[in-house]
């Protein structure tokens, strides 16, 4: 760890919050993508039958 001095809390908080938000939007997007892909595959399988 680098020596963050007396602002250690602020700096780590900023990094923590931002990374959390970034990971959050990526996770939500990936989850939605998977769910829709499955739904579409099911629908197309039904349609072809």
């Amino acid at each position, binding site marked *: 760890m680098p020596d963050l*001095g007396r602002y250690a809390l602020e700096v780590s908080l900023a*990094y923590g919050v931002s990374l959390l938000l*970034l990971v959050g939007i990526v996770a939500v997007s990936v989850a939605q993508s998977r769910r829709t892909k499955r739904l579409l595959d099911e629908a197309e399988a039904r349609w072809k039958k």
Partner: protein
Amino acid sequence: MSFWEYANPRRFMAFTDRVMGPAFVLAAVALSVGLVWGFFFTPDDFRQGSTVKIIYLHVPSAFMAINIWVMMLVTSLIWLIRRHHVSALAAKAAAPVGVTMTLIALMTGAIWGQPMWGTFWAWDPRLTSFLILFLFYLGYMALWSAIEDPDTAADLTSVLCLVGSVFAFLSRYAVNFWNQGLHQGASLSMDAEENISDVFWFPLLVCLAGFFFLFLALVLLRTRTEIRKRRAHAITLRERAA
């Protein structure tokens, strides 16, 4: 081959299938390099101490927050003029990413402001403009989710995006004017890019690239999701009709 070929959903899906993976990899590499570089290997500023490291999150997210709105404006225009569905869906896909960027910019700004200005929030023109931008994103997304028919939703949100852009621009200048009346000269500007030294500038550039590629990858992924959703919806409608 013309750029407009990608307006065909099938072409778009095939093309983005190849592009999306590399975009995610580039984003991950640039973000980890830039943020690790910025966090561990840059010196502290003599005035701001270690809080200067927040710049590697704050500036790229703020930059993206504004440019994502511009991208939504362009794709909305393309939808209104050329009626390419992919374009409208890309605008829809970009909005949640834009909101996230705006939130990151606002929150890192507040966290930076507390030790530096002694307050989490000041009604500085820049901060206020960003809060207003946040409201515009919220309204845009709310309108998308409120309308059932996809084409109607695409049309109405595009019109809102056009009008909203004009008013966001007006607000920017109105806010400058308004704040001047309150406290002149209190320059709380973060815009130190001209005198920022190379030690800070290079990792910042890498982070900017990282945020951009992350946005690109996310928009492609989310647009693909929207296209699939649309297709699944069409199939269910056909089934019901059959």
